[in-house]
């Protein structure tokens, strides 16, 4: 029994240490973002010789949002001869030689849609030659699989990916593509900004969370030359690298995270473009949000199991990058660590071993558990909102306590699912986030 108690106490100490490390990390990021030197991105570069680009838009039952994104992409200011927008299409003759890329190429990837998505894509394809939809019917579903199919067919040197609910601005494709002039860059991520913030408490909190995550966290990682993350949308990557590494992992629920780490371990860099902003839709429903974070946690933790060792032994990364990478990989595991530590504390409590030392540590753990969740701590969110010019929205911070247990629980579940996935090597099924848009935003 004494041994059990000792183990429990050691685990609580270990957990508190982990929480303290993450807290310090977040604080360093916050301080760097507001007071440190900012490492500017390449959006100001004007170059008449930009790379060819294919824009991929995975779609599954996206009739509510499809027109908006297609209209936005068709309005892009990217030099017309260099851009290809490809929705994925089942080629009748896969051996048919595609013409040399002359115009904008938009590839919406229709992935087993059962609503009006196909009809919308066909309508746009008939009207705009640069829109070349890809229809996936017989293949297995999934974003990663759809992207792989489209990448094979795309002709651009650079692939830009947008989720279907996004509304890209006129200049964003150029802002993303220009960074590939840097020979070390493998991928780039822009900033995601929620559009439907007004809807409810959930959307307002998610808006704050996104602010913290992008304006402060990602930008600080970019400043400090650590590991900004490619997020799978509002992002771009070099086509030939992804083909060389065998494409996206079709069993991954977070193929973007996996790509990030694979790129870094192979010596490429991922940049973060804080100036390249794009609107998105965030979940308006708690059930949808629950599924979303459970999926992120599951996918991210699977990546952690698969990529931790390659990260630590990569010869291309500095010590700092490896530490940050390990912490980044572990971010969705902290809920599990915390929940287990909470159980240990509970056990110690009933065993009468709570005295002050583990008690204090439990306390430290709770307060420093990034105060209300592991996505962004409160001071990071406040700072980000401040930088964004927000004022009254900062007052919503105490309401994050209501998402604390919620996030904790579903991230914890995601971790457990990931463990089962890895142990049993089971295949995953893609779960799409619901859309809410009622009227067209663009025309």
């Amino acid at each position: 029994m004494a041994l059990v108690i000792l183990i429990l106490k050691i685990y609580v100490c270990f957990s508190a240490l982990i929480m303290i490390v993450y807290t310090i990390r977040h604080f360093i990021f916050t301080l760097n973002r507001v007071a440190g030197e900012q490492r500017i991105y390449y959006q100001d570069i004007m170059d008449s010789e930009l790379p060819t680009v294919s824009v991929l838009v995975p779609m599954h039952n996206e009739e509510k949002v499809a027109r908006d994104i297609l209209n936005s992409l068709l309005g892009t200011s990217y030099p017309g001869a260099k851009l290809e927008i490809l929705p994925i299409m089942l080629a009748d003759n896969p051996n048919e030689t595609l013409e040399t890329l002359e115009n904008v190429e938009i590839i919406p990837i229709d992935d087993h849609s059962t609503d009006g998505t196909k009809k919308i894509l066909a309508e746009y394809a008939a009207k705009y030659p640069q829109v070349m939809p890809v229809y996936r019917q017989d293949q297995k579903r999934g974003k990663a699989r759809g992207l792989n199919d489209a990448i094979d067919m795309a002709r651009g040197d650079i692939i830009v990916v947008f989720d279907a609910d996004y509304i890209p601005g006129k200049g964003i494709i150029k802002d993303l593509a220009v960074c590939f002039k840097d020979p070390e860059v493998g991928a780039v991520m822009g900033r995601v900004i929620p559009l439907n913030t007004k809807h409810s408490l959930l959307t307002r909190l998610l808006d704050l969370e996104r602010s913290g995550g992008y304006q402060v966290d990602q930008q600080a990682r970019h400043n400090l030359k650590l590991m900004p993350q490619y997020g799978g949308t509002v992002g771009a990557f070099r086509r030939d690298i992804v083909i060389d590494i065998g494409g996206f992992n079709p069993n991954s629920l977070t193929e973007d995270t996996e790509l990030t780490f694979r790129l870094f371990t192979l010596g490429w860099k991922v940049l973060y473009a804080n100036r390249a902003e794009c609107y998105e839709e965030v979940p308006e429903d708690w059930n949808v949000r629950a599924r979303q974070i459970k999926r992120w946690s599951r996918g991210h933790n699977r990546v952690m199991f698969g990529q931790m060792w390659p990260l630590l032994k990569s010869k291309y990364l500095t010590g700092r990058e490896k530490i940050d990478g390990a912490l980044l990989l572990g971010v969705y595991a902290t809920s599990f660590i915390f929940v287990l530590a909470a159980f240990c504390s509970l056990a110690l409590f009933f065993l009468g071993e709570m005295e002050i030392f583990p008690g204090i540590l439990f306390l430290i753990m709770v307060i420093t558990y990034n105060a209300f969740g592991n996505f962004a701590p409160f001071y990071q969110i406040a700072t980000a909102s401040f930088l964004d010019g927000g004022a009254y929205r900062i007052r919503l911070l105490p309401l994050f306590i209501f998402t604390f247990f919620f996030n904790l629980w579903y991230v914890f579940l995601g971790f457990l699912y990931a463990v089962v996935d890895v142990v049993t090597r089971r295949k995953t099924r893609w779960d799409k986030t619901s859309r809410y848009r009622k009227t067209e935003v663009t025309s």
Partner: protein
Amino acid sequence: MTPLFIFFNSIPYPILLAFLIFLLLILLPFVPAIRELVRPKDSLALFIKMDYTKNPRYFDRAFKDILEKSLEKVGYEPGLKKVQLSKNELVDISDSKVVPDNEIVGNILYVRKKFTSGKRVYLNKEIFAGESAIIGEKNVLRAVASDGNITISAGTRVIRWVGTEGSVFVGSDCVLGKLCSCSGLLEIGKACVFNALYGKPINTYKMPDKEVVSVAPKMKNVDDAAWYVSENHFSIPPGAVINNDIISKRNLTLKKDCTVAGSLKSYGNIVLDEGVTVKGNLFAEGDIIIGGKSTVTGNIFSQSYIRIAGNVRVGETGTIKSVIGKKGIELTGNTVIFGYVLTEGTGRVL
């Protein structure tokens, strides 16, 4: 008597008070949050300018566009007209305008043909000149746009911008505001200060050919003709030809007459000695120093300073490339840059 009443009545008042204080102190921090939730004052999505694209010719074109749209409502007859721009403004419309020495002009000027100002004139509002604008010596002006050529004489200070569809000729010792851009040739004199320039191309002042001084750092006990790698430095010997990109964690020096068919990237400084040719881009976390008679066909981007010696060529005819130094840029004479120059710090023509 309801059960709730009975329950609360059974609790002694001091305890009830303590409970209420406890409840109040827990709930009070939520009050501003709930107020913002119920009566939002800041619930809109962050604004993104959806039609934003990086356009170096933005300021003068936008100004001309807004001004002409406003003038269409009041007419183009010569004289003073009141128009609504960002606020109410007086516009002085004329066919040609000459402003004598030492004058202060407080209105926006819309000149259909030629505008000329004397010495030490203060032009406190924007100017548009249809055919050409000649700004006299030691003027202070807010901004000038034209469809023709603009000449800015020595010692003039521009507060905001200069932009034209034609060419711009800038004398010595001028300050060029936030942006000096044109669709044609941009010539800049000595000792000028700038933030951003755009021209096809940008030419710095002509200076006599003199012996080019090496900018490569001197290293003790190192053979200049050798490949050299140390903890902080990577040096490529003179005359080397490399057909690849180079990415270096160290300071990177290319000695005299090297040729690189690829891009260079360094986490330290990049130094190109005299006569180096780079057929690609330069990216550095540190400074970029380009020696005399060097050529870079691509973009130059530094998170620190860029110093370009004389007789350097950046870009090629028919292309647009950029020179971007976050903290500062120094140019010298006989330099040709095809495209865009930008610094967040101060740009100088030495």
